[in-house]
């Protein structure tokens, strides 16, 4: 039994410790918002937050995650998360949508460290998240929009 903290809830999971977190989330916990795209850490579809940092759940053995705070798209309810969801909808980012939960979680980690990212910051933080539908320009716009709102709006505690 492995004890996991996912989206603030404690779960006991009976899984091979080598099993990637992605498949524990999807197949054992029913958290299907986390997507499979490559299984080798190069597409970002499976991105989750571990203690606030963006990680690829397809290459994280579940056995190494006991006690760490895991956030999936279904648990992203921080101020940053809310601002990102709002911006993503406003810019109409998704096409097929399959990459977007991973994109949003990578963006959440970016804004946590870099509240006002430049285009270069965005490139660096987001280059690990593929979008085959080519929504990159809208992702960029949505990140800037969310960052702007967080800096000035009530959610950001404003300056």
């Amino acid at each position, binding site marked *: 039994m492995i004890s996991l903290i996912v989206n603030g809830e404690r779960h006991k999971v009976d*899984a*091979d410790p080598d*099993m*990637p977190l992605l*498949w524990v989330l*999807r*197949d*054992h916990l*029913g*958290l*299907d*918002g*986390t*997507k*499979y*795209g*490559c*299984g*080798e850490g*190069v*597409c970002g*579809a499976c991105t989750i937050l571990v203690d606030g940092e963006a990680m690829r759940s397809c290459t994280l053995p579940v056995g190494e995650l006991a006690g760490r705070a895991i956030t*999936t*798209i*279904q648990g992203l309810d921080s101020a940053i998360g809310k601002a990102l*969801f709002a911006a*993503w*909808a406003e810019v*109409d*980012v*998704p*096409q*097929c*949508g*399959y*990459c*977007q*939960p991973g994109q*949003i979680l990578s963006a959440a980690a970016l804004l946590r460290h870099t509240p006002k990212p430049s285009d270069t910051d*965005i*490139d*660096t933080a*987001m*280059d690990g*998240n*593929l*979008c*085959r*539908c*080519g*929504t*990159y*320009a*809208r*992702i*960029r716009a949505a990140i800037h929009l969310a960052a702007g709102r967080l800096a000035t709006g009530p959610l950001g505690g404003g300056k």
Partner: protein
Amino acid sequence: MNKHFAPSGLSRRSFLVLSAGTGIGLTLAAGDISAAEPGSFTANAFVAIGTDGKVTVTVKHLEMGQGVATGLPVLVAEELEVDPAAIRVKFAPADAKLYNNLFWGPSQGTGGSTATANSWEQLRKAGAAAREMLIEAAARRLKVDRATLTARNGEIVHGPSGRRLSYGALVADAAKLAPPADPPLKAVADFRLIGTSGIRRGDSKTKNDGTALYGGDIRLPGMVTAVVARPPVFGATLKTLDRTAALRVAGVVAVVPISSGVAVVGDDFWAAQQGRAALKLDWTLPAERPSSETIRADFAHLLDQPGMIARHDGDGAAALSQGVKRLSAVYEVPYLAHAPMEPLSCVVRLSKARCEIWAGSQLQTLDQALAAKAAGLKPEQVEINTLYAGGSFGRRANPTSDYIVEGVEVAKAVGAPVRLIWTREDDIAGGYYRPLFVHGFDAALDAAGAPLAWHHRIVGQSILAGGPFAAMIKDGIDVTSVEGAANLPYAIHHLQVELHSPKLPVPVLWWRSVGSSHTAFATECFLDELAQAGGKDPLELRRALLAGHPRHLGVLELAVAKAGWGNPLPAGTGRGLAVHECFNSVVAQVAEVTIGPKGEIKVDRVVCAVDCGVAVTPDVIRAQMEGGIAFGLSAALLGEITLKDGAAVQSNFHDYRCLRMSEMPRVEVHIVPSTAAPTGVGEPGVPPIAPAVCNAIFAVTGKRIRRLPIGNTVPS
């Protein structure tokens, strides 16, 4: 709703309601059908209205990112006079009579950028018929002349008295009326929704928050998960199978040979995947195991031999000797995988007399027929529940319904509901590639430097041959191999296009924009070569040769004006131009490319102009152009499947590289105003980007790129 047991938003009951009629579309007997859902009003196969006034639109096409679930309901809303944002969307069950693609005959499916175009009248009429029935019901209720009533924003309004009746209050009466045979449609000038910006995608929210359902997200009680070990080389067959080690893996429940390979079935994906790795398999390899290098060499030989004639104008190739200057070139493109973000998957539940399938099905009635065959059932016993697809780009529309049939075969073998998953490695190595093509050109210029004769020989595998779509081959010519080349729009007096369709044991398929994905690259680059050889500006030459093609000229002029063609650029930056028609839409693109000191290629900006008839939802069109440019640029710079001894060398995104955020240019999309019926949008944005970028690279470096992918640096 607990999505683990019933996919939300896809109620089985409403499927049955909607498919219960035997008539076609609007001739459906509305009264009979609505009896199935007490109180609600099923106006026809596409429109239902509840007693609360809530409108449900049934979408017969697959939503794979191209925006049909947003755009198609707008067609209904325009005539029905409701807010499209309040419409509930349901995906249609497989039904060749009610939900066929009107451009394809009795077959339901999505492809060839036809979704909006074939639905243009059908859905407006569906909305108008419902509106007329509501007006009639109101006229009877209020005992007034119909002509004094108007539909507006979910209500019927009586002008003289100002009385209003909500749609919800009228549904019971409307349901008793016979639908009008030919309801009147608005004139283009009266549209309030069609053509307006600001209509948001209806599926944004659930796709962002992870609750949208794709094939792999369905969970059924007792469901197991399967992966399949397929032949390591195209055409190999299974010799021996030792399943002992696989069955010893914890969680593996079965190992079953199926027609495509050996399925390993587990309690979850990880067990199945570990089990597959433990299989001991021996394959009989075929004698013919082609490699890209040998294929290229063989195709190059064919360039020297006459092919089948796809077009012959004037004296054709015979006129080449009449010019004052001769030019020739060979262009090449590799095999490409579609690599949609969501690898293929489906869920199948099979019982004695019924087969239920959940998938991002792109050809619902073909999938239904082939699933029925695999299950030993009749097609009407197979229920297709179409979900969102995480991309497709053509991959899901394949002639064997490969992943669906695999799911059915495994479900049959194990006697439990099955979720079948392709890994990314399965996807990249699995074939159904965009074929490798080689294009040979010979051209002659006249004394004024204008093209006099154009001879184009195309070599590549036929997509259509030997499959269910072979009837589309005319006089030996696979139209999908020559589209964009045989209909070259330029006024060149002597013109000949030929085709060789060599057979190879490599499964090939349409890939977003199909033939135009390579013919646009070859023709638009070679035309640039002719411009340069004749001492002409590439824009001026196109203008001169497109005089009879107003739509081409329209997008060309719009794109160059917005791009500032001819304005000075910094050193190291250049512009390239391309214009191309596909799926009845015309797109021009101007690419601005900067070449770094070490030859690094940076595509800075792309200006795109599109003529797709009436722009139903301009925001969706812009998104499709942006996405098409990214998809085409990805292939132009990076995309390549290399075959070695009958198998793909690449295996996943680390070596089948795709465009990333830092490589994405700024894109500006401009739509040509039009009152013509809508044409394609999903694919036409793809073809011009490769030639526009290559022509820009030439403008900076003087180097012609004649082979894709280019790579991240200009090849020396």
